[in-house]
């Protein structure tokens, strides 16, 4: 990423979208909208001082909403370009309230709230589409109850939970536990606030709230407005503290998730959604299970799938290693339903095809290996570029020329063309670049073709 950011021949237009293209192979004019960042690219050094001071918390899309980031943010810690961006939907200043703290904090005075979208024209010889894919939304599968059971997460959410730079710093806290901890934090804040109010009363009347409350209940300070307020405040405070303690006791029993279930083909090989196989989810689940085991040696994982497809170089050995060394068992069978048992533990009901029995098992967490779905914006992009999509809305290509699209001069690589894993995407990227160079070279007038 760093090399792309610094390479002299690469002009990186981040936070920008293609709006229109004209011309044909080797001679395209592309209109690009550079969305307003409200931060001057050439001044911002990416030091992050502004993000520290920004008061507004926003759900962090990079961490699948599991953590929070600030209204002025860098998509992720080492993101390139390091120029920060202000989120216009959440920034107080931009939605009309008063703030501007980031502007005061920034010593490189790179913040500019009146920055506008800029439209620029590019003259290019070839276009390569590398628009990637979206993660399939498993809430479309009712029987997996993805939204209702908090401990059922998607593979990408699990990846973030396990990542050292993720919301839990790699500590595999169960989402249900994190929700309780968040509630505890909220209650602590309210308890502190109500305590401050009580302190004011206590100072005013030089009497402890507890003692006062007994007398009040005994009918001593009847119908005095101020005392009544004090008593109600105290009763409210007691309620908060009580729920706080019960939650804290509950939190003692929380432990890292140890029994993991990985459900394969969620949305893939499924006539209701995507009949194809997404190719990388089996390997991704095996990797996640091995890393989870490295983090917590008592972790036991079960991977439910019809075929566990480890087809790349060294993948079958990796799958075998997972089985032998990382407590992973492969269960051949499709999961019918997930229900919630006691203690927020999801219960998985499945058909064990080798035993020809329907079984169910309780787990601490369930991870859904979601399908590789075409990006939502691909229809628009296809219209703009005029390229054909296949029946699954990936860019149409044919096996003999795997990176050419239906429009000469426009090429595709990676998951925008069809679901594939990293090694293949990297290889296809080079081939798309090669094809583009070939096409541009062919279109040069004869005399320039002689190469030294």
């Amino acid at each position: 990423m760093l090399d792309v950011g610094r390479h002299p021949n690469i002009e990186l237009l981040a936070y920008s979208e293609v709006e229109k293209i004209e011309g044909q192979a080797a001679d395209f004019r592309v209109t690009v909208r550079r969305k307003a960042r409200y931060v001057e690219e050439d001044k911002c050094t990416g030091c992050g001082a502004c993000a520290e001071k920004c008061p507004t918390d926003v759900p962090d899309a990079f961490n699948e909403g599991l953590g929070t980031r600030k209204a002025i943010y860098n998509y992720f810690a080492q993101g390139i370009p390091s120029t920060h961006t202000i989120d216009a939907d959440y920034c107080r200043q931009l939605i009309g309230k008063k703030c501007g703290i980031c502007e005061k904090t920034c010593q490189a005075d790179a913040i500019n709230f009146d920055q506008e979208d800029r439209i620029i024209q590019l003259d290019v010889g070839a276009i390569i589409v590398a628009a990637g894919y979206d993660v399939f939304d498993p809430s479309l599968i009712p029987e997996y109850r993805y939204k209702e059971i908090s401990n059922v997460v998607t593979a990408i959410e699990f990846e973030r939970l396990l990542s050292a730079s993720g919301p839990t710093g790699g500590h595999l806290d169960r989402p249900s536990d994190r929700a309780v901890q968040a509630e505890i934090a909220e209650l602590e804040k309210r308890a502190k606030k109500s305590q401050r109010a009580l302190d004011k009363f206590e100072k005013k009347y030089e009497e402890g709230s507890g003692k006062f409350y007994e007398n009040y209940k005994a009918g001593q300070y009847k119908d005095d407005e101020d005392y009544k307020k004090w008593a109600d405040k105290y009763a409210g405070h007691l309620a908060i503290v009580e729920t706080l303690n019960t939650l804290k006791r509950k939190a003692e029993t929380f432990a890292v998730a140890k029994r993991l279930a990985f459900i394969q083909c969620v949305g893939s090989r499924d006539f209701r959604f995507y009949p194809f196989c997404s190719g990388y989810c089996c390997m991704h689940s095996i990797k996640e299970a091995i890393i989870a085991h490295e983090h917590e040696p008592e972790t036991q994982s079960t991977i439910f799938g019809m075929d566990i497809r480890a087809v790349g170089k060294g993948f079958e050995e990796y799958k075998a290693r997972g089985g032998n060394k990382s407590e992973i068992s492969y269960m051949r069978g499709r999961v019918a339903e997930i229900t919630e048992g006691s203690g927020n533990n999801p219960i998985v009901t499945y058909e064990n095809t080798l035993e020809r029995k329907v079984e169910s098992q309780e787990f601490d967490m369930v991870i859904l290996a979601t399908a590789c779905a075409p990006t939502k914006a691909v229809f628009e992009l296809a219209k703009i570029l005029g390229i054909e999509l296949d029946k699954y809305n990936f860019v149409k290509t044919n096996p003999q020329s795997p990176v050419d699209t239906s429009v000469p001069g426009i090429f595709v690589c990676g998951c925008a063309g069809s679901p594939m894993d990293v090694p293949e995407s990297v290889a296809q990227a080079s081939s798309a670049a090669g094809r583009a160079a070939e096409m541009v070279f062919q279109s040069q007038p004869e005399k320039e073709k002689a190469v030294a």
Partner: protein
Amino acid sequence: MPDMKDEDIRIGVFICHCGSNIAGYLDMEELSEYAEKLPHVTLVQRNLYSCSEAGISEIKKGIMEHDLNRVIVASCTPRTHEPLFRSSCAEAGLNPFLFEMVNIRDQCSWVHMQEREDGTNKAKDQIRMGVAKAALLEPQEPIMSDVQIRALIIGGGISGMTAALSLANRGYEVVLVEKENKLGGMLNRVNKLGPTMTDASDLVDGKILEVTEHPHITLFTSAKVNAAQGFIGKYQIDIETESGIKKIDFGVILIATGASVYTPEGLYGYDGQRIITQLEMERLFKKGLDPGIKNIVMIQCVGSRNEDRPYCSRICCQTAVKNAILVKDQIPEAKVSILYRDMQMYGVENEEMFRDSRAKGIRYINYDPARPPEVESNHVRVYHALLGREMSLSADLVVLSTPLIAHEDATEISQILRVPIDENGFFLEGHVKLRPLDFATDGIFLCGSAHFPANIREAVAQGLGAASRASIPLSQGSVVVEPIISFLANEDACIACGLCVALCPYGALEIQKTAKGEKVHVIDVACKGCGCCAAACPQNALDINHFRDRQIFAAIEAGGAGAR
């Protein structure tokens, strides 16, 4: 390397505030006073943001006005801004390698926020170590080596031909060496290609024609490479052709030698007549299938995913399903069953073909590797893992899906070109995920089944990709290497023991005859400067530019001597 016999060393130390990221947690005043008192330091300056335009011009001004011959910037991590500062030093007329960065932000102020005093002491030590090392730095020039604009491609299968055409179509000189007397490789023996069921010969013949007639491609069939010397940009290759040995120079080399099909001797009673491999099945199709065949049983994972060949050969499932469909198309009433462990029909097209095959009535029976099927005279007994009972399928023909294994001359090529092969004999790529088409040693590239079994779509994509990777040095005409490389510091001490040559992961060392007898010679261009040769050399003869032993010793002594 000229030794700097204490020529007047004038060091400039630029301490960065990085807004409040450093200044907020360290005592900048103390740091700059401390730096001023260090040996050879003639200028200490603090700036708000060293990496901003203003900061850079401050540094340049400092170099010119104070005639500095060493520069230190104490700021963030060199991994991001070192190139920026090096180029700024060069613009101010100072050799970019007389520059050293000291990390007092990511590894100091940011991680010792509550310990201002200890953090400042640490920063002082790090600056003193930087100054001690900088005093001994020597100027370096980037190493340029021009590239012979010609590519050698070994292997004329679909992948090799695609790569050759891609490079030739971009105007580069290509030499294609094919061992057989005809191009096409494996595809010559394949009948039809899934999933579009086109004829293999249509695709291959088209490509062969294009290759043979292409003005920029020189083709040698029944030829093979038997010796190779040199490194990226300057390879001297001996090609043994029907008309004698040809010595040709090349800039880059592509390996597209493909793979061969494993013959399952002794497995399931293989006899090549009634019990055949998928490849022999392809020949049956070409000859025309005997319409009398009523029952065919295919067995997957024959000789693969076991101890000797633990890998899944990726393409045998697709081939089996394709052939099964072709049988059903030609003889609709034939009964075809496939005994499988996992149907590896990954991706969009394969899964579609897999569904079509079931629609055409092909039966899939899951077998447990611990209880493999038994092939008898005219039927196959198998324990159906999913139904939990023994079955017997009549079989006029049994087709064994065997894996692709490494080409038998892969080991020979790997020794000639000094590139590694993995435990299964396939060539070992630079990085499994990020550099799948390169080798660790620059200048040699890899595509197709020589890397790992690949279907047509992947072989073509990898051929194009490897050609694109190979075109980078060709298009630049020269290769620039950062001069942080190994060099023979003490020629007399070297006894040419060859220990370093064996250890070097990049094949960047060789033993050469010199006036003083045999000595180690460093191939500048191939060396990555990791330093394991210098650290291992029994005679301490080798050293690494910019990280010389004495520079590191100076830094160690400087670090230790500081205040507790």
